């Protein structure tokens, strides 16, 4: 398939198209109403407290941001590594990444104690803060994606595709490293103080982003009456399977290195002993349904060429990813800080005990708002620009 011959077309803005946008806008509006209420009352109405300071909004936001980086996989493979098969999908890859990133950032901003001070966050910088650097990395990635898309859309700039794609690839690798480092730099927290956090986040981004990409691609083809060829779908599935295995490997490495250090045994038992809620989520949600079941679906002879199994598998990877974020973000905070190693601590401020956290509807509303905004960007983009090729069916065998 020669690249020049690909014909792109916008989605037909029919009833179902507008219906979908209306539903997404509705979810966003409900979420924003919830945000106004939260803003008025303060965070006490949420499940977050002085022990678990980051909650469900951060689970959603970090997931979306990490997935955004991974959604660019297809673009990188096509534009940097020159895989022709993925070239027709590079535009969707860029659009989806932008959408996911915007959704994640919106959640982060809406959850701030003082969202009205967004301008302060953009004008006062502490350059020692990895968080401040991430603000640059996130907004910068949006600019880089815009540049990449521009190059893709202008045939006159075609020879710059590789350069723009390489810039996007490097940028997103740094961005995911930075996101992982937000946690990795928290030296005092038993669950986070690990250099492996950064590479773990990179490989998680590959996995989550590819899974989201597959489902969005299928939905877009389905909704617009395009045929998505088996070859393309299963190729993506095989890629996803490798990423899921790699995440599992890194998780294993993380826990084994932690188990090596006796000071981390408390936290490791907390996550691994199958007693705490977080441990159950880890084994059943993250490892079981989020990794092993999809891998079985992707590789087992009876399901490996089944489209439905492939989609179920991708959906489970997303669910497992959210659960993994929950275990990392909430579990890491719920486990008590150790002020006096080897001693038993107690106080009126929940020292020495596992902190409780019961997520509230307000936090889920913020999370859903972010997801809805991500999808609005994607759906609107698909309707306005020629993102999807007209034909994604398998190439006919020659002769």
């Amino acid at each position: 398939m020669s690249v020049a011959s690909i014909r792109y077309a916008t989605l037909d803005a029919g009833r179902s198209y507008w219906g979908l946008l209306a539903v997404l806008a509705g979810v966003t509006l409900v979420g924003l109403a919830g945000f106004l209420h939260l803003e008025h009352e303060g965070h006490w109405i949420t499940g977050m407290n002085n022990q678990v300071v980051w909650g469900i909004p951060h689970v959603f936001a970090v997931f979306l941001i990490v997935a955004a980086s991974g959604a660019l996989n297809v673009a990188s493979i096509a534009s940097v590594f020159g895989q022709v098969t993925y070239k027709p999908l590079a535009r969707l890859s860029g659009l989806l990444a932008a959408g996911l990133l915007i959704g994640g950032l919106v959640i982060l901003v809406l959850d701030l104690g003082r969202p009205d001070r967004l301008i302060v966050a953009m004008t006062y910088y502490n350059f020692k803060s990895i968080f401040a650097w991430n603000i640059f990395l996130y907004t910068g990635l949006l600019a880089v994606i815009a540049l990449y898309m521009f190059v893709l859309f202008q045939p006159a700039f075609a020879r710059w595709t590789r350069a723009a794609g390489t810039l996007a690839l490097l940028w997103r690798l740094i961005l995911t490293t930075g996101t992982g480092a937000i946690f990795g730099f928290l030296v005092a927290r038993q669950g986070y103080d690990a250099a492996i956090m950064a590479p773990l986040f990179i490989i998680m981004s590959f996995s989550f982003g590819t899974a989201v990409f597959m489902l969005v691609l299928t939905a877009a083809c389905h909704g617009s009456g395009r045929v998505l060829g088996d070859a393309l779908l299963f190729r993506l599935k095989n890629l996803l399977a490798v990423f899921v295995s790699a995440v599992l490997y890194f998780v294993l490495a993380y826990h084994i290195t932690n188990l090596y250090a006796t000071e981390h045994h408390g936290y490791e038992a907390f996550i691994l002993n199958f007693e705490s809620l977080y441990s159950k989520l880890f084994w059943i949600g993250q490892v079981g349904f989020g990794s092993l079941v999809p891998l079985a679906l992707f590789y087992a002879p009876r399901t490996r060429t089944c489209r439905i199994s492939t989609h179920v598998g991708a959906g489970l990877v997303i669910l497992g990813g959210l659960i993994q974020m929950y275990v990392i973000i909430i579990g890491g905070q719920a486990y008590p800080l150790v002020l006096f190693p080897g001693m038993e601590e107690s106080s009126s401020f929940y020292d020495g005990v596992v902190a409780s956290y019961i997520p509230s509807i307000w936090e889920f509303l913020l999370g859903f708002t972010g997801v809805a905004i991500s999808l609005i960007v994607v759906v609107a983009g698909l309707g306005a620009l020629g993102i999807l090729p007209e034909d994604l069916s398998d190439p006919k065998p020659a002769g």
Partner: protein
Amino acid sequence: MSLDLSRREFLQGAGAAGALTLAPGVFLHAKDPEVPVTDAVRWGMLVDTRLCQEDCDACVTACNEEHNLEDLGRPETDAQWIRKLTVRDPLGGRTISLPMMCQHCENPPCVDVCPTGASFRRVDGIVLVDKHTCIGCRYCMMACPYKARSFIHENLTEQLPHAPRGKGCVESCTMCVHKVDAGENTTACAEACHKDGHQAILFGDLNDPDSEISKRIQEFGATQIRADLGLNTGVRYQNL
């Protein structure tokens, strides 16, 4: 730079206002707002756990009153700048009790991570949050090894001029900066502990070898909690 200046002026303004409201009948060496805060001093506190009584929380009550920290009956979200911590050695069962508050680290992780620079350390060693630039991201709470910080989860009423607070911002022990800047040379917790006759908390200048706090540290030594983190805390403990 201009940020630092305005911040300093703001705090000293607040300190002066506090001195006025607190002052009747008390002679104060109020700090001249024109004189910048200097690193010639390093304010700190020393806690002797042998003198600290397990059933006493005079320091906590005094801090809450000094800064108008209300008990809203929601212990998970209510602000606590200082708390009593009980530490028990499982081997033998020896129990000690101590006040835990912001340790006013020289290398504060809360300052390192704050994206806007709202969390800052004054050159005299006091770590504060600038309530004008804090966006309420709570990253500093994630980073503090001592869980010293509280997020304000609700609307507050009846603010005190010397302790500005507000919904959506993070706060922690200010080492009674308004008292320090007013020249009172003590903190609410140290004062209350003294009044109750325990004298477990001593406030002073760690840089001045002749101050009582320095002398006691020279003589008996003092420990940092989680010294392994290398934060060089301004709050030290004896007989841990």
